[in-house]
């Protein structure tokens, strides 16, 4: 029986690996090195890649800077309505991206709830690079929040207690003890959020639009190219996969070399 289960696990692993890896492998099989180089010569592809890196970096910075204290607060405090707050913060996880885009328009668009207020403050988001960043933060932040909250909740309470008895305030405990100890988990959460942001398509298209160099990120350029320039779209896809894999791998290596406390 035990052996049977072991065989089942291995079979499931093989199926999962084949199913998840095959499409990516197919992408690489479809694109010759020549096409790959040609696509790197294409200005629209280059603009899209540069824009993608720029907006995902900005979005990730905002998510980490704002999200880490939020996750800490949720992990360390018990209050009425806490589970409602957590659910609301996680809602973008289950929203279809198109719904997220329409919701952002309804909130921050020119005719939206805050449309007039933003307009009089001189802030424009729709059709702007800033709008792409807003869309990415909206859809990707729950990935980081969830992971960071779980990481802080899993901290050994005696560590935090020791910090407190040694006279450190909450801010110091958070910055000098909690964040360094939870570093690996926070990094993993950041990687997840970044990956979600890099692949974002629907909310960006609906909320920010698609214009080369301004709002057309790599996924939007790939979609636009699918109909008119399939080989270019495939090549850009391959580049995107390679860049994503390199960054994910890099993060994993950093996480490994930095010893846990």
């Amino acid at each position, binding site marked *: 029986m035990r052996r049977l289960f072991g065989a089942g696990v291995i079979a499931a692993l093989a199926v999962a690996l084949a199913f998840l890896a095959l499409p990516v492998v197919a992408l690489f099989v479809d694109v010759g090195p020549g096409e790959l180089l040609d696509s790197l010569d294409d200005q629209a592809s280059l603009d899209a890649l540069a824009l993608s890196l720029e907006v995902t970096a900005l979005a990730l910075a905002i998510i980490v800077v704002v999200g880490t204290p939020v996750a800490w607060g949720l992990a360390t405090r018990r209050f009425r309505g806490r589970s409602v707050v957590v659910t609301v913060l996680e809602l973008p996880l289950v929203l279809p991206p198109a719904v997220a885009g329409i919701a952002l*328009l*309804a909130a921050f*668009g*020119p*005719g*939206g709830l805050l449309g007039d207020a933003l307009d009089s403050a001189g802030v424009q988001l*729709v*059709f702007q690079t800033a709008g792409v960043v807003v869309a990415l933060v909206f859809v990707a932040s729950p990935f980081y929040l969830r992971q960071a909250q779980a990481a802080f909740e899993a901290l050994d309470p005696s560590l935090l207690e020791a910090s407190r008895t040694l006279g450190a305030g909450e801010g110091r405990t958070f910055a000098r003890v909690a964040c360094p100890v939870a570093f690996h988990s926070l990094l993993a959460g950041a990687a997840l959020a970044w990956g979600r942001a890099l692949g974002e398509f629907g909310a960006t*298209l*609906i909320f*920010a*639009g*698609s*214009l*080369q160099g301004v*709002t*057309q990120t790599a996924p939007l350029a790939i*979609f*636009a190219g*699918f*109909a*008119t320039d*399939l080989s270019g779209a495939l090549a850009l896809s391959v580049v995107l996969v390679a860049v994503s894999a390199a960054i994910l791998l890099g993060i994993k290596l950093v996480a490994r070399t930095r010893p846990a406390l």
Partner: protein
Amino acid sequence: MRGLRIVALAAAVALAGCGDSSDPKPTVTVSAASSLKKAFEACAATLPREDVRFSFAGSDELAAQIRQGARPDLYAAANTKLPQQLASAGLLEPPVVFAGNRLVLAIPAGSHVASLDQLARPGTKVVVGEPGVPVGSYTRAVLGRLPAAQRQAILANVRSQEPDVLGVVGKLAHGAADAGFLYATDVVAASAQLRAIELPARLQPRVQYGIGIVKGTKHEAQAKAFVDSLTRGTCRQAMGKAGFEPPPG
């Protein structure tokens, strides 16, 4: 455990139900340009013998899907070029023209744009279709007939290139943009939010819709019936109601 058993039972009943229906209505799948959405849905409701399923997207996306191996039974595009290209590639039976349309300047309620000339004003937000999708290529044909300075000024005001007409409609209906180029029928379909400004006849491109049966379809008779209905049956009336023009001749 009991819940699981109930689910299993329900599934078994559902499966048995599938097997029992000995003569289901054949389902015809139509890949159709987004601008045909309302008219085709109204049209399908008039067909008694077939179930019709639609996949709406930009004509260019749908053509790319077919080139990549997707096999709907019919392909209906907002131009004649894409169906002809598929036919030359041996993927489509010779296409027929089944409707005409007009390009218009569409504006949302409250837009300050009242004429084509105002599109060139700095700060005016314009949305258009991508160059590859028919509505985008017609739009560029219109702009190509304008004086170069005016064309450049309008292109500089383009804020987004949308993958299909529904994207342009969405941006306008939400008041995100001041004006966009659409088909006359798109504005009819969204008449609660949008208004059309007619283009001068000298700028108007020839907008014709082509449809073709995908080679190797298992539902050739039903696909043919759909095309016939479009050219001379009940669907032609649905098309007319939606604002499409009859095919030439």
